[in-house]
């Protein structure tokens, strides 16, 4: 990787096949084909950058670029169908810029900001156009065509997404590195340098955004202590991760008895000896949810058609009569939106309720949707806090920390941990929901196991973010004060003798303070670019 001061290398041409492969990875990152993992793996720049690096022939450079970009977006949250920025497109285009365009990874990070905004337009287009497709599903549900509902949930919206995502990503990867790589070479050095300065600062913003979610109950002290230890001593990232996990495990152990055990509730679901639903039907319902919950995500119903699709194997078994099947399909095509992993519980609970309803138990059809509604909000709150807010950033911090040292085990470890977490939680909770009903789930949440996992995740997160910030936020000042004959170098003569990483720590805490005063993150990104240009221009950075 070449620095601004050196002559820029000639950008490598990207072959059409490689650009297409990268564009397909971008499609897959949002698609329905990766068993619920796409959004948690290929969508993250850490993984996207690694894949881009593999395709373009330099996996380590790709992983490092992906990790750098991912850090800037570490605290971004996609909650309740909103998206602040398309971090996936930013990751693929940014990594291609580094690997093929020979652009410094920090400069590339600054250049991904518009890519993230462009990707947001793609997301909006998809969320809007999919509304029409869910109306096709309505039509098929009215006729009692369960296969048609499933088809409408998957085939047209995924074909649309393929076109919407592959075309812009292909164009960006095919022409972007060569064009931008050359254009950057013609920039004055201070301007290119300012992009690098901003790129060195933006990871601090992502880290501060994650920290803002954790900044309570002593997590702040954990962060600062982790930062200081890692800045002063060269602790391997993995060793620090193991240490943090051990502390979190101890915390889990210590709090185990403090939560009063709620009595195991009687099952709400009908548990008669001859249940019409077979295990295969239920596994298929779970798999449909795991794969296709967001296949036709749209502003009007959100996961409505995904929910109906998940219920198809259950409803087809329970309602042989077409008019009953039609009523049930329509019942589940209404507005629904939940965090999908903890939300798997609702698929299980609903399957049990539909089974009871079909067998003539006193479960009204309207009560089924009322139950779904009462569960979706609180479970989303807990699920988003646990996974998006805490565990994913903690694991990403570990994976990115390793990747920044050129270790490809980083992205791999992250992906494997997320797969185990998501599949494990989703399957366990689905069956629990089916067997114990709503009361069982409420009892489970009340016992506080998930909240203790969240608390332990916060400890790991705060320590990993501290370790990461110490290495990944890069800021040194060449400022020389006119004191004495030789001048007084602020960095070498003062900061390096006291605490070399003082500036990076100050920047993280400054971003945190601004975020806590409700300054918008996207605004902070743009201000960072401007301030970096000015300070670089006057020679302070």
């Amino acid at each position, binding site marked *: 990787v070449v620095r601004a001061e050196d002559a820029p290398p000639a950008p490598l041409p990207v072959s059409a096949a490689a650009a297409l492969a990268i564009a397909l990875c971008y499609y897959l990152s949002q698609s329905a084909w990766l068993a619920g993992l796409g959004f948690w793996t290929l969508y993250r720049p850490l993984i996207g950058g690694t894949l881009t690096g593999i395709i373009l022939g330099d996996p380590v450079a790709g992983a490092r670029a992906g990790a750098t970009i991912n850090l800037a977006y570490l605290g971004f949250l996609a909650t*309740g*169908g909103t998206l602040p920025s398309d971090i996936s497109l930013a990751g693929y285009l940014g990594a291609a810029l580094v690997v093929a365009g020979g652009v410094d990874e920090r400069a590339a990070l600054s250049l991904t900001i518009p890519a993230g905004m462009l990707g947001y337009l793609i997301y909006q287009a998809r969320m809007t156009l999919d509304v029409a497709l869910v109306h096709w599903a309505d039509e098929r549900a009215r006729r009692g065509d369960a296969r048609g509902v499933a088809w409408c949930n998957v085939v047209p919206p995924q074909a649309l997404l393929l076109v919407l995502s592959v075309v812009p990503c292909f164009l960006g990867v095919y022409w972007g590195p060569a064009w931008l790589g050359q254009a950057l070479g013609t920039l004055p050095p201070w301007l290119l340098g300012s992009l690098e300065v901003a790129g060195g600062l933006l990871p601090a913003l992502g880290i501060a955004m994650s920290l803002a979610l954790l900044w309570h109950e002593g997590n702040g002290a954990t962060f600062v202590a982790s930062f200081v230890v890692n800045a002063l001593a060269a602790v391997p990232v993995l060793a620090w991760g193991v240490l943090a996990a051990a502390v979190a495990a101890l915390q889990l152990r210590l709090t185990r008895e403090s939560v009063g055990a709620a009595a195991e509730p009687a099952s709400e679901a009908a548990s008669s000896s001859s249940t019409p639903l077979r295990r295969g039907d239920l596994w298929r319902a779970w798999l449909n949810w795991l794969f296709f919950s967001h296949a036709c995500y749209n*502003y*009007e119903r959100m996961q409505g058609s995904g929910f109906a699709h998940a219920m198809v194997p259950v409803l087809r078994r329970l309602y042989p009569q077409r008019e009953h099947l039609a009523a049930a399909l329509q019942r589940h095509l209404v507005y629904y939106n939940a965090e999908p992993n903890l939300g798997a519980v609702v698929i299980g609970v609903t399957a049990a309720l539909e089974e009871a309803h079909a067998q003539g138990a006193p479960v009204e059809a309207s009560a089924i949707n009322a139950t779904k509604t*009462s569960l979706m*909000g*609180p479970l989303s709150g807990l699920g988003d*806090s646990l996974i998006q807010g805490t565990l994913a950033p903690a694991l990403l911090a570990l994976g990115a920390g390793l990747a920044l040292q050129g270790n490809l085990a980083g992205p791999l470890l992250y992906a494997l941990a997320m797969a185990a977490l998501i599949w494990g939680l989703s399957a366990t909770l689905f069956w629990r929901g089916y067997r114990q009903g709503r009361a069982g789930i*409420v009892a489970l949440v009340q016992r506080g196991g998930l909240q203790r996992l969240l*608390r332990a995740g916060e400890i790991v997160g705060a320590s990993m973010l501290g370790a990461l910030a110490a290495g990944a936020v890069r800021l040194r000042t060449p400022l020389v004060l006119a004191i004495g004959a030789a001048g007084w170098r602020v960095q070498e003569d003062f900061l390096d003798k006291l605490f070399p990483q003082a500036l990076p720590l100050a920047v993280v805490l400054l971003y945190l303070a601004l975020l806590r005063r409700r300054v918008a993150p996207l605004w902070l990104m743009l201000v960072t670019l401007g301030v970096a240009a000015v300070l670089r221009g006057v020679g302070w950075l």
Partner: protein
Amino acid sequence: MGGALRATMTEAAPPAALLPFALARVDDRLLHGQVLLNWVRALRPRRLSVVDDALAADPLARSLLLSVAPPHLEAWLGSISEAVAVLAPAPVALTRATFLLLRSPEAAWATFRAGVRFAALEVGCLGHSAGRVRVAAQVYLSPAEMEALWNLAACGVTVMARALPTDVPLSLEEIAQRVARGGELPRSS
């Protein structure tokens, strides 16, 4: 059409000082990711007060909601009449630190009339259902719900719509124009 004309003044309580809250938000999922992550991160309230008659009467739903609230927030859930007893006499220092969540515009209007006189109301997420038209990506509203919002505005409440703290809010006039047009595209069939 002006808000003052639309309001049924006989229904409105006599004017009294309005209470500032950290945020009063209408959301038909009440507590979810946007609320617990984006808004709690931005507002840093000390209390989370959920007002909903149906949830207050459902012990399971009630305990589920209270158990997912983060431990560093003081969470409270009650019916409209319980909310009046707790929140109406509360000192301003306390309401300023309170994040108030309400299920629907009608519930917000009923809560306000009963005596919880919040000074501002933000319409957060209201999902699609029959009779509602699309006002924004996350907001679908029915004419009856629009009426409730006008009633609140006539009593001096500042009404806006936005899902996230970083979104640009829609004013009540913009919301009303969109409802009057039959919603923003895409229309629901």
